[in-house]
């Protein structure tokens, strides 16, 4: 970890010294923004850690907790909303046995997130499953998709 962080800080100093870019790069390397990284940056750069956390909590892009192996992002833009995005989210959470305020499963295999708009409104409702866009989908089709993902995970284990 130390090595990666040192590299990122070097890049940060060479460019304009933008904390947002530094955090974006950090997240790209680790999948989230680890607490230890922030405190290390804070002492190295002599910038209060609160400024990092201020930024990380302000922008929706940053995650302070590790996320699941499979990431399902439901678009909740207006077009998707009027075509039933909420029912999709409910169906996914039901299938993964997630509470309303919970977004990652206990075993960290699945993370369910909402996003304001992907800009592919003509395919509404849209869900992104591990980076692949699935348009005009239904609760039923998604449940099947999740089940097949679960099967694959089991295969990988075996």
């Amino acid at each position: 970890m130390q090595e990666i962080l040192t590299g990122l800080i070097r890049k940060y100093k060479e460019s304009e010294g933008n904390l947002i870019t530094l955090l974006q790069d950090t997240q790209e390397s680790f999948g989230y923004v680890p607490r230890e990284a922030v405190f290390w940056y804070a002492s190295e750069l002599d910038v209060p850690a609160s400024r990092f956390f201020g930024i990380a909590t302000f922008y929706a892009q940053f995650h302070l907790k590790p996320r699941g192996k499979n990431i399902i992002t439901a678009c909740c833009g207006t077009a998707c909303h009027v075509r039933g995005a909420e029912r999709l989210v409910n169906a996914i959470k039901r299938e993964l046995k997630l509470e309303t305020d919970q977004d990652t499963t206990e075993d960290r295999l699945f993370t369910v997130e909402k996003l304001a708009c992907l800009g592919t409104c003509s395919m509404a409702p849209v869900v992104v499953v591990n980076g692949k866009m699935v348009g005009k989908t239904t609760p039923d089709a998604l449940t099947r998709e999740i089940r097949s993902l679960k099967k694959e995970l089991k295969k990988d284990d075996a």
Partner: protein
Amino acid sequence: MGPGGIASGGGEVLSAFEKHLGQAKISAEIKDRCSTHKVGCLGLCSKDVLVDVFINDKKTTYQYVKADMVERIVDEHIINGKPVSDWLADEEYDNFYKKQIKVVLSDCGVVDPESLESYISIGGYKATEKALKTMSPADITDVMTRSGLRGRGGAGFPTGVKWETCRKVPSSQKYIICNADEGDPGAFMDRAVLEGNPHAVVEGMIIGAFAIGADKGYVYVRAEYPLAVERLSQAIKESKEKGFLGKNIMGTGFNFDIKLKLGAGAFVCGEETALIASIEGQRGMPRPKPPFPVFSGLWGKPTVINNVETLANIAYILNKGAEWYASYGTEKSKGTKVFALTGKVKNTGLIEVPMGITLREIIYDIGGGIEGGKALKAVQTGGPSGGCIPASMLDINVDYESLAKVGSIVGSGGMIVLDEDNCMVNIAKYFLAFTQLESCGKCVPCRIGTKRLLEILERITKGQGREGDIELLEGLSKDIKSASLCGLGQTAPNPVLSTINYFRDEYEAHIRDKKCPAKVCKDLLVYSILEKTCTGCGACKRACPSAAITGEKKKPHEINQELCVKCGGCFDVCKFKSVARE
């Protein structure tokens, strides 16, 4: 090859064409004329994947193309010259384009967005050359002012005036920023332009920078648009290599460079002062204006911020003249505007129409009417800052002034069609939930006001509405509008006010009768099983998360209303439509 096309299998279709054209071993002369290339969004996304075949300049369009259809198209059409009539785009496709006038989108779908050569071949960078070599900065701002172009990001401020003001501010360092933080849910024209014709935006920025005297530019683009980021970076890189960007552009001594900044997901960063803070690496919070960014913007220097669509217009206006552009549109709203037509309309996609066209023409002539023969209820324009226009006002002209008069806005150009199945209270709640979440928290009216608005709307949709709630919403909305710091708060109550204004009866039904007329609001619904058609298959029983459904196999089941959590799971799984929702 916009995201819609790619997700519908555009990549597979393209490689299938390459494969079959190669395999066919077409004689050399034909092969020379055959080339496949990808283009940006063609507009009519609901019929993806669309393929245009050009033979001797005659264009034929296929719709819903899948990779396995390619072989036959190559065989029958390209080799034997007979189009495959079964798969041709139908009448709807022609109607979709008939009433549109394309300026910004005119080359999207024609030019290869990943090739500078392709852009130059259609007259790209001619406007830049004309501006830099034959015009003075004042000439350029004058053309813009006369063209009547207004900011396409939402506020509609005259572009020429903005540039002229900034040009006159004395400063050794100025900036131009392209606002590509398209955050309105339901709007995707900026993404389409960046992906379909990125060089047009780059060109707009070069000309703008020359006009105001800036030597540095930034594009602030959403990280959620990976393809746009990729194509824009490629466009900037190629322009640099060819000397359209960098030092001494075209030998005129003018220096200009563009940097890309990725947004990190905050709607408020579309507000210009918040956007500036974000580029500077801070939390994206707006500050009071004045001073306006044209006097004190990025790092305290004079800065012009233009939206993607605005910038994409610039080169066309310089090439064809201010009078040409001003010949479209109405007296105060000139030119064309791109709208993202989505929701419950048949032909969804991007459309570009002259300002002043009626809403009816957009929805029925271009959009092909409402999906599934349902009744149109309202059209939501302008995203979270806009309002709903009821079906009774369909003949309204779509321009800045007319929409403002009925309590909505043109905004960035989202246009969402709502039908009888949409609950207007729910729509208002949806937008408030969005603005409340995206409120940066700096000023009290927006931070606390939107929260309270949302709470009232939530209790109404839960069946706990009280007499007087509507008046409370109206009063609070007015206060938030007048006291908020930036555009986000000042416009956040618009969806509430316009739905109350035109659909007061729906609010009353929720509050007094505890009913949701459109059957959307979860807590006001009652699910029951229709004894007559229930086959007792047990699918609903298995789907029920709260064990509220009981019944023996092959006999009608029953829902225990006290245990029911109204998740709708049974409704979704029942194959016999035996679950009723009231």
